[in-house]
């Protein structure tokens, strides 16, 4: 139908689409500038650290203990400490986080209680990590009398990454097609059978990769462990979970705060080691995620 406003409308439409195009184009350029900027900045930092630290990466650096002399100081206790903490964090946070994720996603009925839980978990993810350190100090180190040990540190870091693990577990569980669970139920499977035989195997790689990402976040944390009592000067390799410890980020922090320039070189080298560790974990997590996507979509 022809209306007297017909021409006016088309004019408006044309103007609208023109504005749209400019707007979209503008955003694209903005986005590009900032993305490239950020990437370049990070690459720059990385290049600087590599340049500063790479020459220091020799066998002695990996096998050395703490020392007053920067040339003799090494990262062995910190490296081993990091591995210990990583292992323990994974060992503890995985079963707890996955169980919590399964409960929240598959068992809990929607209601006020569930909303309360959900809001709390999301908020926990936003709490500064140093607060977790204080909590760990009071609860694990003092109340539970674990001392300033690897175990206390691991438990604290577990608390820190649990929200992450829980959320990523729930996401993985949610990705399992409803048709699969429905089919299991229709065959007379109980909820647990459907979860155990179908939902978990399908979501497992996703869950593991979420946990690995959590761990890779945990091993980069220095502040909660500083509060908790990680020490700079550990003259021995940790032998049990109750030993004193230091970890790479803490070691880096102590070296970086020393006045001698040579310790800064050590810090750079240690940063490189930590970066490689984290990247490795992320890479594994990514590969798992890819495989899992293929499995779910096939």
């Amino acid at each position, binding site marked *: 139908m022809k209306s007297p406003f017909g021409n006016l409308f088309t004019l408006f439409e044309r103007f609208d689409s023109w504005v749209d195009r400019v707007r979209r184009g503008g955003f694209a350029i903005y986005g590009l500038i900032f993305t490239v900027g950020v990437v370049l900045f990070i690459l720059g930092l990385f290049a600087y650290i590599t340049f500063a630290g790479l020459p220091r990466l020799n066998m002695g650096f990996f096998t050395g203990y703490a020392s007053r002399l920067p040339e003799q100081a090494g990262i062995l206790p910190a490296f081993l400490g990091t591995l210990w903490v990583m292992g323990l964090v994974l060992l503890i946070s995985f079963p707890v986080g996955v169980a919590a994720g399964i409960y929240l996603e598959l068992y809990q009925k929607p209601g006020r209680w569930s909303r309360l839980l959900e809001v709390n978990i999301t908020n926990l993810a936003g709490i500064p990590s140093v607060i977790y350190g204080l909590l760990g100090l009071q609860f694990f180190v003092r109340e539970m009398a674990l001392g300033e040990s690897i175990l206390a540190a691991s438990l604290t870091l577990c608390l820190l990454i649990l929200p992450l693990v829980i959320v990523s577990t729930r996401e993985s569980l949610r990705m399992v097609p409803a*048709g699969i669970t*429905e*089919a299991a139920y*229709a*065959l*007379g*499977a109980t909820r647990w059978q459907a979860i155990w*035989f*179908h939902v978990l195997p399908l979501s497992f790689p996703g869950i593991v990769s979420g946990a690995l990402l959590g761990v890779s976040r945990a091993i980069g944390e220095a502040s909660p462990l500083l509060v908790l009592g990680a020490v700079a000067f550990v003259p021995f390799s940790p032998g049990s979970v109750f030993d004193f410890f230091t970890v790479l980020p803490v070691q880096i922090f102590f070296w970086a705060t020393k006045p001698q320039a040579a310790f800064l070189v050590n810090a750079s080298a240690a940063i490189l080691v930590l970066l490689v560790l984290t990247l490795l974990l992320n890479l594994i997590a990514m590969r798992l995620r890819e495989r899992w996507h293929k499995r779910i979509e096939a």
Partner: protein
Amino acid sequence: MYKIETNDLNFFYGNNQVLHRVSLGIEPRTVTALIGPSGCGKSTFLRVLNRMNELVPNARHDGRVLIDNKDIYDPSVDLYDLRKRVGMVFQKPNPFPKSIFENVAFGLRIKGVTHRKFIQEKVERTLRQVFLWEEVKDNLHKSALILSGGQQQRLCIARALAVEPSILLMDEPASSLDPISTAKLEELVYELKQSYTIVIVTHNMQQASRTSDKTAFLYKGTLVEYSDTTTFFTNPSNESTQNYITGRFEQPG
């Protein structure tokens, strides 16, 4: 005696009533087709029969649903046992992303069957029952997802049959299949009728007339007409049935 019987079945999702006083009896070893426009309650009715509706929050019903003369909503009825007796095939083939063998064996495993020989024989027998054995016997341990849509749907039927139900519910089982697979599936339904009571939801009038003994027409949750398929399609007693099967039907706005 009826195999399945509903008396004054009302069904609600929250405050939305989906079925209105549906009363219908289904005889054993027959195929009953449920037809009607989208949203008329066909699938809901189907899912009342194996209590799959209980997975939906806020779903409730009143009236009685009897299978083998026993109220399936009675508290003494074991839900998981009921679902083993009332198999279901879905609109979209949904095999488990596992091997062909494991798909069929799953029902047995959750029944607690561990005897390997028994499981193997059962898997072969059910796959033969759905005319799939010859096509997959060399690939039993490959993923079920390599099969074509039609094969997958027959696998899903085999999966349901392996737990030895006496009733088979089919929710538009051919809607995502090509004509040849559909023809095979209809042939299969005809064969299965010898031993199972089948209720099939379909959008396809020809399919209903080809496969079923009785046809029920649901409209806005009310059972409009229910009669022998021949009578239903040649001489319907209700005017809106007449209009629906001849395609002169106004879809609800």
